[in-house]
């Protein structure tokens, strides 16, 4: 029983990593309707930028804010330069473009900062919080920040004019144009915000997993799984999904006899697919209704 509790707590802690990534994934999905494979690499690159600033002696919060700002601008730039020209291309071509972006960012980061792991500081400290060190203050802070970001985004999309305009542009671009919304810039904004959320996620994740160019691949895939489980149309669902994936994976790895340890990722994914069988749009997602 105690081990169960410990693994659930630890799962929540790692789940926070996936949840913050899942949030960035859903953000961009809401803006452009597909998954950005390069999301993790963008977050990683942003974190390296912050790390570089810290190496130059900047204080933590300065580096943090500048990194987030640069990521926001970078996201917009990538959208304008890379994706606007191919926005009418088939979806699969756009997907391939994301894959290309992944390669560019990953390779460049490796060339610039090489592959040895680096520590990244945390503003929350790392003293054990409770549960005998199962969750540290940093991990608790990560959970808190993720929930705060989620809350902010929720209010932004529901409560502000800009948020409303973005949702309109994503759901029904033609009608949105008719009411004067600049759809192109809404998409760019979506990219920028998603990059910014990714940067925050990266800077929260790096202290736990250590900063190196390949740190985000696993995280992105788990985050994606969590987002799909929760429902791609629901940011809250995505965050919940992220936490769920962390817990499921830990429990599968610890308690499923014989196969659990070696196949825990498989088991987690199978469970998610099973859930999708019952709820094909994710647990909290809205069912997709297509008009005939």
């Amino acid at each position, binding site marked *: 029983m105690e081990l169960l509790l410990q*693994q659930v707590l*630890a799962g929540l802690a*790692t789940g926070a990593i996936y949840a913050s990534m899942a949030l960035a994934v859903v953000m961009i999905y809401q803006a452009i309707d597909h998954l950005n494979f390069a999301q993790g690499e963008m977050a990683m690159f942003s974190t390296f930028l912050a790390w570089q600033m810290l190496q130059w002696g900047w204080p933590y919060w300065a580096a943090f804010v500048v990194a987030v700002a640069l990521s926001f601008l970078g996201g917009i730039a990538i959208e304008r330069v890379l994706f606007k020209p191919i926005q009418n291309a088939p979806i699969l071509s756009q997907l391939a473009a994301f894959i290309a972006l992944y390669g560019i960012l990953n390779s460049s980061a490796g060339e610039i900062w090489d592959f040895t*792991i680096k520590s990244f500081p945390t503003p929350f400290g790392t003293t054990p919080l409770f549960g005998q*060190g199962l969750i540290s203050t940093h991990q608790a802070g990560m959970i808190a920040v993720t929930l705060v970001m989620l809350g902010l985004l929720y209010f932004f999309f529901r409560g502000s004019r800009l948020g409303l305009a973005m949702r309109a542009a994503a759901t029904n671009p033609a009608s949105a144009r008719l009411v004067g919304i600049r759809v192109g810039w809404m998409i760019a904004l979506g990219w920028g915000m998603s990059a910014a959320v990714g940067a925050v996620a990266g800077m929260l*994740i790096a202290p736990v997993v250590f900063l*190196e160019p*390949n740190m985000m*691949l696993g995280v992105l895939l788990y985050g994606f799984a969590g987002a799909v489980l929760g429902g791609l149309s629901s940011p809250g669902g995505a965050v919940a999904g992220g936490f769920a994936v962390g817990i499921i994976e830990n429990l599968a790895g610890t308690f499923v006899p014989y196969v659990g340890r070696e196949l825990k990722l498989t088991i987690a994914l199978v469970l998610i697919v099973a859930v999708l069988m019952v709820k094909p749009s994710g647990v909290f997602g809205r069912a997709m209704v297509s008009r005939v």
Partner: protein
Amino acid sequence: MKRITRRSILAAAPGAVALAALPARAEKQYGPGVTDTEIKIGNTGPYSGPASSYGTIPKSMAAYYRMINEQGGVNGRKINFISYDDAYTPPKTVEQVRKLVEEDGVLLIAAPLGTPTNSAIHRYLNQKKVPQLFVSTGATKWNDPKHFPWTIGWQPNYQIEGHVYAAYILQHKSDGKVALLYQNDDFGKDYLKGVTDGLGDKAKSMIVLAAPYETTDPTVDSQIIAMKSAGADVFVNTGIPKFAAQAIRKAAEIEWKPLHILSSVGNSVGAALKPAGLVNAKDIVTDFYIKDPTDPQWKDDPGYQQWVAFMDKYYPEGDKTDAGNVYGPSNAATVVQVLKQCGDDLTRENVMSKAASLHDFTVPMLLPGIKINTNPTDFAPIKQIQMARFDGERWQLFGPVISGEVNG
């Protein structure tokens, strides 16, 4: 141009006869890729893809060969080191090695990196009789001269290390409960086998948890928690630096203080212990065969200073905290030694013959007392390691140099 007249031919005749009568000393034997001025050698490594952190190893080798060339080459011949990227995927390795052998025409393949990648070209190179020299992996299977006479390993293989750890455990905690962290691929499983075999009959009762991880796992926290919960008081940590460091840190966080044995793969002070927190690494035990470049105890050591000078001049962008950059040049130096010993007989057969007759050869960054030895039935050049304990600041070597013998 001198006119060739009958007189000049007659004048040259005695000289020609004299030349023909000279002993075969001046005769040169060349395999593919060799000329009077050049020796072509091939290599593959992960310059891209998930294992690209190891890409610095072939890069440092290239730098070393550059240095040798600037110093005059080997017996007057420059080394042309052709290295291709295989992204750590065996199908690509096969393609690149075939290119090296069939298109570039290299004399030998030096230090190809990775276990599955080397497995893929193992048979091909032996069939084609191309030396697969000093492979950059610690898998045990390369020490098999009877079946694969063209393949030879280099570093102490993982099973030897596993045996040494097991021996240490039996000596210091014979009633202990052992947990093991290993990467879920052949290098990790080789360590697992080494420890399990080394513990012999007691393995079943002593090993309470052997926990694998995948390189795509973000953390190994879950495994560490499970180990503490299983009551383990001995922890064999064979993770690569990222995961070794995570394990060290997590163990400290949950206040789990087992007898902690770290493998040579993850024991770099700069690359693993510092990120984990030096204070958390106190009392960890490990094994070494090369010097850790981040360990302050080597500051005044001439071998270390030579290495630093080499890095500064030939590979300045290389990370001096990365043990891979010690591995690369040391391995390359061994290749150079073999080529030197070949003299002018640079055929593939002679290369293997000389590779199989290294005697007490050392390179500057090997630990003092560790020597490279091979003979026709022993294709494990480095078999010795030495244990060390971390005192919170640096690794303190202790005990004798230990020799291990495990055959593939």
